[in-house]
């Protein structure tokens, strides 16, 4: 019982962060059918922003969240304008490698600037504080991150389904050509999707930086997990990313408890099983 409660709590907390990481990937895919290998590197940028602001200014890492999101937005838009826009017309393989190149570039640019040293945030209201509730001891920043994740999801959901901009995004995602004829600036919409994608994942990075380490090579594993999350939930589905993120967090924590060596295999196996029966993921259309 104690074990079960602990695993579920840890799994959900971790899963919410995975979900937020996957959100941007899912959104970008939904709007323009492209998978971004550099997604984890966007997250890494968010982590470094939180680290730099909190170490050198020093600003509380909580206050660095908007800066990280802003930087992520900019990074997303800039990558779209400079690279993604040009690879969109190519075949899928070329798209994958374009974003793979972006990933390598960002990762090693970070290595060039910051050296490969592992760093972490040491000061902050929430850093290193533990909450205790009965059986469970949990890092306060994890609980806070989970809350921000839920809020971010709600905000993105509201934006997409309740605002005019969101309608434009949805129209672009359903039929880009038709949307263009209807007077929607599809290029602007694409850039917006990349901006939001970058912002959410950089936000996730800044949250993770509270309880994780920061290093240039941190992105790849998170990218892979985000892929599995998005594909499991269904590309382009916001609700799907949310549910799948939690599911993957749970699988990871539970399998980590029993067969740690194979825990990633369990994630991939679950993904594989789900898509075999539902080829477009849990909530894909």
């Amino acid at each position, binding site marked *: 019982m104690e074990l079960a409660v602990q695993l579920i709590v840890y799994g959900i907390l971790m899963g919410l962060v995975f979900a937020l990481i996957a959100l941007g990937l899912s959104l970008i*895919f939904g709007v323009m059918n492209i998978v971004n290998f550099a997604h984890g590197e966007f997250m890494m940028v968010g982590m470094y922003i939180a680290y730099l602001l909190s170490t050198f200014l020093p600003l509380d890492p909580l206050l660095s969240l908007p800066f990280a999101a802003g930087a992520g937005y900019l990074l997303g838009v800039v990558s779209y304008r400079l690279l993604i826009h040009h690879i969109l017309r190519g*075949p899928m393989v070329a798209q994958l*490698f*374009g974003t793979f190149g972006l990933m390598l*570039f960002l990762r090693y640019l970070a*290595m060039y600037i910051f050296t490969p040293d592992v760093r972490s945030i040491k000061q902050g209201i929430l850093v290193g504080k533990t909450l205790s509730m009965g059986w469970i001891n949990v890092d306060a920043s994890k609980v806070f991150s989970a809350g921000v994740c839920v809020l971010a999801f709600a905000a993105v959901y509201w934006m997409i389904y309740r605002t005019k901009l969101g309608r434009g995004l949805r129209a672009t995602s359903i039929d880009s050509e038709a949307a263009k004829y209807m007077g929607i600036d599809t290029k602007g919409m694409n850039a917006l999707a990349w901006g939001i994608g970058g912002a959410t994942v950089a936000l996730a990075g800044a949250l993770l930086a509270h309880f994780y380490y920061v290093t240039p090579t941190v992105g790849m594993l998170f990218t*892979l997990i985000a892929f599995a999350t998005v594909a499991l939930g269904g590309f382009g589905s916001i609700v799907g990313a949310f549910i799948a993120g939690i599911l993957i967090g749970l699988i990871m924590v539970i399998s980590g408890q029993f067969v740690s060596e194979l825990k990633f295999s369990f994630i991939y196996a679950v993904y594989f099983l789900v*898509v075999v029966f539902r080829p477009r993921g849990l909530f894909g259309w």
Partner: protein
Amino acid sequence: MVRLRQLLIDIFSFRDRPRFERIGFLIFILIVLIFPWMVTSAYGRAVMIKFLLFALFGLGWNLIGGYGGQVDLGQAKNVGFGAYATALMIVWWKVPFWITVIPGIVIAAAESFVVAYPMFRLKGHYFAIATLCVALVWKELFIFWDWTGGARGVELPIRSGVDFVYMQFNSPIYYHYFILFLFLMQFFFVNWFRKSKLGYEVQAVRDNEDAAASLGINVYRTKVINYTIAGGLGALGGSFMAVYYLYIDPDAVMPLDLSILIAMTVMVGGAGSIWGPIIGAAILIPLDMYLGAWLGAQKRLGIDFMIYAMIMMVIAAKEPKGIWGIIERVRKKRTR
């Protein structure tokens, strides 16, 4: 007799290709043949061997990724099957190298066949990510299992001198011709394949599934068989890796990076052309190895990868059909 003659022609003939391609290929073969005698630098020779190895990997991947038009990001698992089949059989039972190649290919093909069935229900990105997942699961299993040596990998006993039974040599020149031989085998196989009935079917399915189906092609079956063959071809290079490096572990022979590098060489060279993998490997492998050797141990790290990444991004943005796309375009302009 007639059929055998026809088969040989299908294997060795490039008559359907323009003359300049045939001349280019001849020049290429000549260069590769005399290469070890022209270049005495061991690193230069090692680069050449790795180039041929990745050209070979690319040829196999081209079946599924180029002719078949499916993005497969899991070719490294087949490399791993080949490498492990060879290494384990040599270590356990002292089986000669050439015999171990066959089970390697059979296992890789059989596994590909089995997973292809559910996997081809998926399309596009779902398929790409599924291939990636399958490869990563295999890698984790190979680390998990004890009988494969686990994370400690498999070490092959070193033999002195020149040994054609276990294909171990004290000079890279032997390895050069050894991998060249494997490369040419695969190359002529692919040359035969692209002109075979199955090859045409595969390309028809890639260009338009519905049209292919209306012509009576079993789309599903074609994809599965194609994937199976591509899987088997991946194992051959793996067997070579085992006797070349003499130590293998899952991180070395089945990592994600390897899958991506294989796909990338084909993409850079030009997917769907028999020359694509060769051109791509000729560019990426020397670039990677020389950049890494020169810039890899500087005070500031990462310059080598940044240059590499820039080149990838430029190719993806400007020339999504790869180098071969440029060549084709220029040629069309001239003939017009």
